[in-house]
């Protein structure tokens, strides 16, 4: 399952739908990314821009590779775009596997590739104005460990 959408989602409902009816699965890992706002640097919103056609294609390719590489039973990715307020979930990745290590590795792999290869761009909206979030070199490093 891949969902690219500007609609809010419920992390728990998504998790429950994902992990039911798989008696061969022993482990599910869920990663949820949320909008942060720190006391010393509060933001009013996070605005996500997206190239939806490319996001759909790239995420589908990353998902297929992850399922094959870690022998996952299933994997699902949901990513929002548009204007999100602090504490709101931005995205969720879920993996289902026979055992825990494959589920963890699959989820980390998906996250590392999504960070660098999924066409989303974040803008932080604060009292002082709106600023693009800079890409982190550490995200490239995290992705490259899987090569």
């Amino acid at each position: 399952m891949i969902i690219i959408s500007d609609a809010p989602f419920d992390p728990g409902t998504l998790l429950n739908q994902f992990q039911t009816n798989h008696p061969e699965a022993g482990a599910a890992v869920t990663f949820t990314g949320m909008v942060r706002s720190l006391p010393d640097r509060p933001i009013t919103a996070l605005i996500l821009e997206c190239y939806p056609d490319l996001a759909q294609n790239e995420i589908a390719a990353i998902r297929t590779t992850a399922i094959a590489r870690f022998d996952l039973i299933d994997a699902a990715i949901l990513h929002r775009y548009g204007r999100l307020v602090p504490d709101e979930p931005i995205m969720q990745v879920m993996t289902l596997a026979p055992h825990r290590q494959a589920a963890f590795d699959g989820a980390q792999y998906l996250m590392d590739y999504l960070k660098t290869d999924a066409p989303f761009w974040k803008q932080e909206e604060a009292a002082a104005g709106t600023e693009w979030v800079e890409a982190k070199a550490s995200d490239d490093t995290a992705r490259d460990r899987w090569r």
Partner: protein
Amino acid sequence: MKILYFAWLRERLNRASDDVTPPADVVTLEDLVTWLRANDESLDLAMANPKQFKISKNARIVPWNTPIDGAEEVAILPPMTGG
């Protein structure tokens, strides 16, 4: 051919896309970007560090040396910050 710009690149150019018809000697996507930059000073400045961008052809990320080969939609992608 449609060229798409995203995020701060889109903002710097003040537009989200262009419609262009490159000459016959523009063969790869790298040639295409060189040709676009030669014809647009703001794009040239914004792409001063070209290595940081990725490029897509018909909604798939591809290497810079990929032939244009009748592409309908090419996008120039600043470093991504999703997830």
